[in-house]
Structure formats: structure tokens, C-alpha cells
């Protein structure tokens, strides 16, 4: 059970489970080769995610995919890219970022309190980096709600802002 940050009626924000996050950079023309290395298809549609064998790949930039998967598989996934014959970069950012899961009917309103983005533009599986207050965050719409992840050092700010938005939403 993950740690609860706040609740607002049926809406809640809680700590996302600790997962492996590997940031993959490669040329868009090498997408097929990168997909073969990852073991599943990497999306060629911007701001969309694909999944396979317990991992997700978030297409955040034309040359960038974020691989999210089980902590135990981190080493195996990284090793697949080690001897690749194409130019790529794979950086383990699992410890750099922390995540917050937002679920419930007011999850969109909580995010809208800090995001300049029209959240309706992201359908389930959609992902993008944007701002929450002053902090760059990664938003990922999942089947059961939102995953917001951001740099660990900004976590106190993000949580404070989230609580302030929740207070505003709760006040009559």
C-alpha cells in the first residue's frame, strides 16, 4: 500500500510505487531497432505510450522514450542496450524522480490547479512533460488516474502546492 498524501472526497493523491525509469535517447529513424532491443514496440506517435512484458515506453520527444518497469528488471533492460550497434543513450533516472498517483473524480481539477495544459488533450496512455506550478513534471494518464513524476528535490514544493490546490477545491 502506497503512502497517502491527501484525500478530497473520493479523490486521492498517493505515493507512486518505486519503479525503474530508464530514459532512452535514439534517432527516430532507429525506432525499429530500438524497439527490438526493448523487446516491445516503441510508439512513433508523440505523447503516446506503449507497453510490453511489464514495461511501458512513454514517447516524450521525437528522439526520447522513457522506459518504466519493475525495479527488479532494471539491470536486464539496461543490459539489452549495452552492446547495441546503433547510437543511443540510456540513463537510469529511477532515483532522480519521484511519482504521485492521482485518482478519483477531482484528479483533473487537482492538476489543473498547477498545470497550464488542457488535460483533455491527453487520452489514456497519453503522456507529456509540462509544468506544475514552477516545476517541470511528467504527466501520464493511466487507466486508473494520473501519474505525475518530478525531480526528487522538488517534491516538497509539489506536495505543498497539491495540498494548497486541494484546500481551495475543498473550500465552499
Amino acid at each position, binding site marked *: 500500500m502506497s503512502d497517502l498524501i491527501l484525500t478530497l472526497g473520493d479523490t486521492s493523491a498517493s505515493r507512486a510505487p518505486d519503479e525503474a525509469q530508464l530514459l532512452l535517447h535514439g534517432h527516430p529513424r532507429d525506432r525499429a531497432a530500438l524497439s527490438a532491443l526493448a523487446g516491445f514496440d516503441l510508439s512513433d506517435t*508523440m*505523447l503516446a505510450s506503449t507497453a510490453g512484458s511489464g514495461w511501458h515506453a512513454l514517447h*516524450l*520527444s*521525437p528522439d*526520447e522514450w522513457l522506459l518504466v518497469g519493475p525495479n527488479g528488471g532494471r539491470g536486464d533492460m539496461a543490459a539489452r542496450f549495452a552492446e547495441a550497434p546503433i547510437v543511443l543513450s540510456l540513463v537510469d533516472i529511477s532515483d532522480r524522480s519521484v511519482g504521485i498517483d492521482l485518482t478519483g473524480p477531482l484528479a483533473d481539477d487537482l492538476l489543473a490547479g498547477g498545470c*497550464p*495544459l488542457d488535460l483533455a*488533450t491527453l487520452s489514456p496512455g497519453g503522456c*507529456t*512533460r*509540462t*509544468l506544475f506550478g514552477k516545476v*517541470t513534471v511528467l504527466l501520464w494518464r493511466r487507466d486508473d488516474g494520473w501519474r505525475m513524476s518530478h525531480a526528487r528535490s522538488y517534491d516538497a514544493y509539489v506536495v505543498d502546492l497539491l495540498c494548497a490546490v486541494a484546500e481551495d477545491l475543498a473550500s465552499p
Partner: protein
Amino acid sequence: MLLIECPHCGPRAEIEFRYSGEAHMVRPAAAAACDDATWAAYLYLRDNVRGEHAERWRHTHGCGQFFNVVRDTLTDRVVTTYPAGHARSAAGGEI
């Protein structure tokens, strides 16, 4: 606030972006050999147009990519956007 169409991410709020100066500034090919005036022009001389201006922007809090924007400096209206490395499109007027 400007609404800027990132060529990769779609329309986003201006605060997600960072301005990066005039676009299509070409670095002299033989930088070490070129004369001072050419180098100074590359470094410092800009058009400062009144009207449609091609400029570089970076989607800092998004995909992170540089791209080009044609913006009217008089009205602040964004006329068109296109990926970095592309020529200024016909829609954006003359270079």
C-alpha cells in the same frame, strides 16, 4: 500569454517555452579564418524587424526541442511554427 504550437507537442502555453533569439543565423563556415566584421555580424547583428520575425524557441518544459516560430513583433501574434532545420515556410512570408 501566447499560445505557441510546438511542432511536436501541439499548442502549449508560453510559460512552457524559452525564447532563443533570431532564427536562421548561419555560422560562417570557416570560423577560424573569417574576418572580424563577418564574425561580429554573426555574433551580434540582428534584424530587429517590425512585423513578422522568425525566431527560435525551445520547448523547455515539454519535449525539450528547439523549433522556429514566426511571430509578428507588432501584434505579438504567432503566425506559424515549424521544426528546426526547416526553411522558413511560405506561410511565414519572406526571409
